[in-house]
């Protein structure tokens, strides 16, 4: 049967009047989509090569370029959309699993968008966050049900209970685990520097620790995943906390695979594997087949780090998330990370990314509730990840019961990412998801850090605005304060799971 060409996804339109033939677009496209025709003295694009990263559009000094979606549709069918047809064609041609990157883009219902926030009117004053103190500092780690105090001979009250190690966040937003390999060193440096400036944490991901990041230890969480890349005792002790990764929202239940050709000299050094070998992260940790095995690993890490660092455990939000979370806490996790169905990734099978897991809004609500019911909520902090897009999502997540959130995609977007979903190709024009030195240098970590700091500071301001509006001046008064939330257009069972009332209902 005849092979049909799959139509280009994007069209790159160029206003020839505006084009000054600077050829920046030609020089800069890593996919080689743009070219210059000497004879015609004009610049053209091979649309089929365009992935829609918008880099040329952003760089064009005269705004001559517009990258747009190809309005072409095979047929306007509601069920058999062009996307499905094209996927089928690709698979019919290759016989392969569809690969994709970044977060779930199916139009699942966003519960964050159906939750509204409260504000003070008359009965209590709202607080001006710019002028009055407004505190968003958050500590992650094991807390006590009861602190024992004692009095010394001078009558001063002293703390008797020993406090478990904590992570101190000046803003309750951290940067998600993204490994060296999946993102460039410059991207990591941007995250690290921003974390340091703002007073929060970034996460090395499972790819080991590039030496350039060692100096950011006091703002770093090191991750231990099934591949154990780059993991040794120095690594465990290099950061402020250790995070065991069981799963991630984009691909619950499956592992990772960094192809050998991407294992460069530098990656080899940090992953501690020979240059050119495949870096395989198995789906499970092969020393964890059950909850008690998790406990064993947690305590092995605690031993190795002399109980000086919080140990966290990250899982994907799946159907049974609440009991699993409770088990993790009882197994000794000082903080747990729940990554929802919209979590991002460098590469995942499309079918997994788009169809496995549950929305984070439910996950955090049921986990928080379950831990409270079991009386162990204080034993671990809850960090929420997976599709946090703005400060409102942060606020809602915290009010639903999170202590802090992780952002990955949002951070990458701040660095330039346009979600073209082609990270797995390693040719990221924005210099983020690539190791090509020609491309990585496009991300200047000074600019990157500045943009991330701006983002976090902006969110911080917004969080403070909202807190002030609610008449509270400390984030702990928001944490789990579901009274501040109301659902709009949600069913009763959804409201029940979220633990919130419908809009219109008073206290």
């Amino acid at each position, binding site marked *: 049967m005849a092979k049909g060409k799959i139509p280009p996804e994007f069209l790159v339109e160029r206003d020839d009047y505006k084009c000054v033939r600077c050829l920046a677009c030609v020089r800069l496209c890593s996919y080689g989509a743009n070219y210059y025709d000497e004879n015609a003295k004009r610049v053209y694009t091979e649309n089929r090569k365009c992935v829609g990263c918008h880099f040329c559009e952003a760089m064009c000094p005269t705004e001559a370029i517009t990258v747009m979606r190809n309005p072409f549709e095979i047929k306007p069918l509601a069920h058999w959309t062009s996307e499905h047809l094209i996927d089928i064609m690709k698979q019919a041609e290759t016989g392969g699993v569809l690969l994709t990157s970044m977060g779930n883009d199916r139009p699942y219902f966003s519960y964050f968008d159906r939750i509204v926030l409260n504000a003070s009117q008359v009965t209590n004053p709202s607080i001006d966050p710019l*002028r009055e103190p407004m505190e968003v500092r958050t500590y992650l780690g094991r807390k006590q049900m009861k602190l024992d105090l004692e009095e010394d001979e001078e009558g001063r009250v002293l703390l008797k209970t020993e406090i478990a190690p904590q992570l101190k966040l000046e803003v309750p937003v951290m940067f998600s685990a993204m490994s060296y390999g999946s993102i460039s060193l410059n991207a990591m440096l941007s995250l690290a520097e921003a974390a340091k400036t703002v007073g929060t944490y970034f996460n090395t991901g499972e790819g080991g620790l590039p030496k350039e990041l060692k100096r950011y230890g006091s703002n770093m969480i090191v991750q231990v995943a099934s591949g154990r890349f780059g993991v040794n005792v120095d690594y465990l002790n290099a950061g402020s906390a250790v995070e065991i990764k069981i799963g991630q929202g984009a691909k619950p239940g499956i592992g990772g695979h960094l192809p050998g050709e991407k294992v460069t000299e530098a990656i080899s050094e940090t992953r501690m594997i020979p240059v050119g070998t495949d870096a395989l992260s198995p789906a499970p940790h092969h020393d964890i087949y059950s909850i008690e095995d998790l406990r064993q690993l947690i305590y092995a890490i605690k031993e190795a780090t002399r109980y000086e660092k919080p140990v966290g455990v990250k899982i994907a939000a799946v159907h049974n998330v609440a009991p699993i979370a409770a088990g993790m806490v009882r197994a000794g996790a000082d903080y747990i990370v729940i990554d929802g169905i919209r979590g991002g990734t460098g590469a995942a099978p499309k079918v997994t990314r788009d169809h496995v897991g549950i929305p984070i809004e439910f996950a955090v609500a049921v986990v928080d509730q379950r831990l409270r019911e079991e009386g162990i909520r204080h034993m671990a902090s809850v960090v929420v990840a997976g599709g946090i897009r703005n400060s409102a999502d942060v606020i809602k997540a915290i009010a639903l019961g999170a202590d802090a959130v992780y952002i990955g995609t949002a951070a990458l977007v701040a660095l330039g990412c346009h979600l073209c979903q082609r990270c797995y190709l390693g040719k990221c024009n924005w210099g983020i998801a690539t190791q090509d030195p020609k491309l990585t240098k496009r991300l200047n970590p000074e600019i990157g850090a500045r943009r991330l700091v701006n983002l976090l500071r902006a969110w911080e301001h917004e969080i403070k605005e909202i807190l002030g509006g609610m008449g509270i001046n400390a984030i702990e008064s928001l944490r789990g304060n579901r009274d501040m939330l109301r659902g709009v257009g949600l069913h009763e069972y959804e409201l029940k799971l979220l633990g919130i009332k419908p809009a219109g209902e008073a206290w």
Partner: protein
Amino acid sequence: MVGIDAKGWHYRELNETIWKAVGEGENEIIVENVCGQRYIGAGLKRKVKILLNGVPGNDLGAFMDGPEIVVYGNCQDGVGNTMNSGKIVIHGCAGDILGYSMRGGQIYVKGHAGYRVGIHMKAYKERYPVIVVGGFVRDFLGEYMAGGLILILGLERDEDGNVTGDFVGTGMHGGEIFVRGPVEERKLGKEVKIFEPTIDDMNRVTPYVKEFCDLFGYNFEEVMSEKFVLLKPYTHRPYGRLYAY
């Protein structure tokens, strides 16, 4: 002159009586046994002198435009709330939000005052509000202040030896605060800075210090002998970078 005994009176009763006396052209009204009656002098527009013995209630002299009120005793919250002109002299201490949104006139407090003194005070045209506090003040002095003059003399210090509380001048974008005695840098809102007053600056202050000393019997030279600091906003746009486009 008319005398009123306010003992056991509800504020409506008391204030009706005062309004009536003012309406009848009385120039001086003395009220005895004031205790918690609110809104005394509120909205009065005539130049009349009201002497109060006791503790008046909240919002003393609110929206007042002309009268002089002298209180022999402490005052509660909200003295001189949105006052337009006139004068309030307190031979005691004052509560919170002293001179809230005050646009003109003068308030003299012999003792200390509470939180948010001079909050939102603003000068307008010929109006120039002035607050003079003899003792210390609590947090948020001059919050949102947009104009006028606040003078804290620190003749009495708080339990930690301070003249001001925390968050001084937060949100301040106009006017001046003079403090006699030191102010710690870390207690300042991010909008204000400490300046050394010039001779011109001090010349603006001296008449009010003098008046204060005359009112409460302090030695002017002694009061002036200690160093003053001047707190002023240093930028009109402290939040310039706060908003995205």
